[in-house]
């Protein structure tokens, strides 16, 4: 069943409110999961479970939040920054994320800012409407 972006947006926000115990006015499109909404590593798994249930889809491990496995590879990380190859790889793994800002300075410390509410909505939109 096709869903509009608004419908998906609303359901994703409800999911995040439940998983992270935040209020609806905090879950803005641009809010970062870790910085703004206080998500910790275990919350990402919780969010994936809840999204699977809410949308009746299967979210393969490391597809929505794939950054972790990349960080342990020296070809992709150099002096605390992603290398060109690392950035390309991350971009191909996360087509649902907007890299415009991050690309200017791919500092690992700024990676948490990549995970925003609207990137989840885009991911789900691609997934639901491709099915």
């Amino acid at each position: 069943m096709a869903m509009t972006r608004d419908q998906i947006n609303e359901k994703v926000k409800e999911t995040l409110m439940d998983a992270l115990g935040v209020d609806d006015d905090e879950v803005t499109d641009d809010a970062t999961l870790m910085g703004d909404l206080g998500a910790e590593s275990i919350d990402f798994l919780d969010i994936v479970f809840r999204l699977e249930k809410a949308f009746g889809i299967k979210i393969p491990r490391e597809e929505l939040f794939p950054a972790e496995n990349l960080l342990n590879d020296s070809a992709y990380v150099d002096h605390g920054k992603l290398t060109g190859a690392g950035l390309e790889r991350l971009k191909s793994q996360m087509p649902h994320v907007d890299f415009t800002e991050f690309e200017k300075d791919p500092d690992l410390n700024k990676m948490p800012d990549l995970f925003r509410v609207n990137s989840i909505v885009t991911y789900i939109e691609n997934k639901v409407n491709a099915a």
Partner: protein
Amino acid sequence: MRWIWIDKFVEFESGKRAVAIKNVSLAEEYLHDHYPGYPFMPASLLIEAMAQTAGILVGQARGFQEKVILAKVSRAQFYDLARPGDQLILEARLETITPEAAIICGTIRCREKLIGQISLMFSHIDKNLAGQEFPQENFVFNNEQFINLLRSYEAEKP
């Protein structure tokens, strides 16, 4: 031996649900301080009782091969106090289990009344944190005493 905070299981459906009992007794010392003259079980210990009920349900579902740790208390709401003399009925239902983690929803009843609702998330720790390994000895299910205890009950079954 690990600290065991539930008295017994009264129902156990592998991979689905478990019901355990915890009797609240003034013989337990913490009640003397919480609070003097008005004893009741702290919410943290109600959560612990649910975590043990649910943790064993989750562990058993994978043959006690995983290191199961409590990763998140997603919800804990209480509607009444658990006081000395009460018998708590803790029911945990397994909502989701995957190679990495499990989610359970639980209720606590006493005097035929719902007194608490708790949702917990458990992590299979070896499957998370980028494959980092953890020592065996810190984990309840890999503790020989715990498994032997279970076996001794199994052996006594009619």
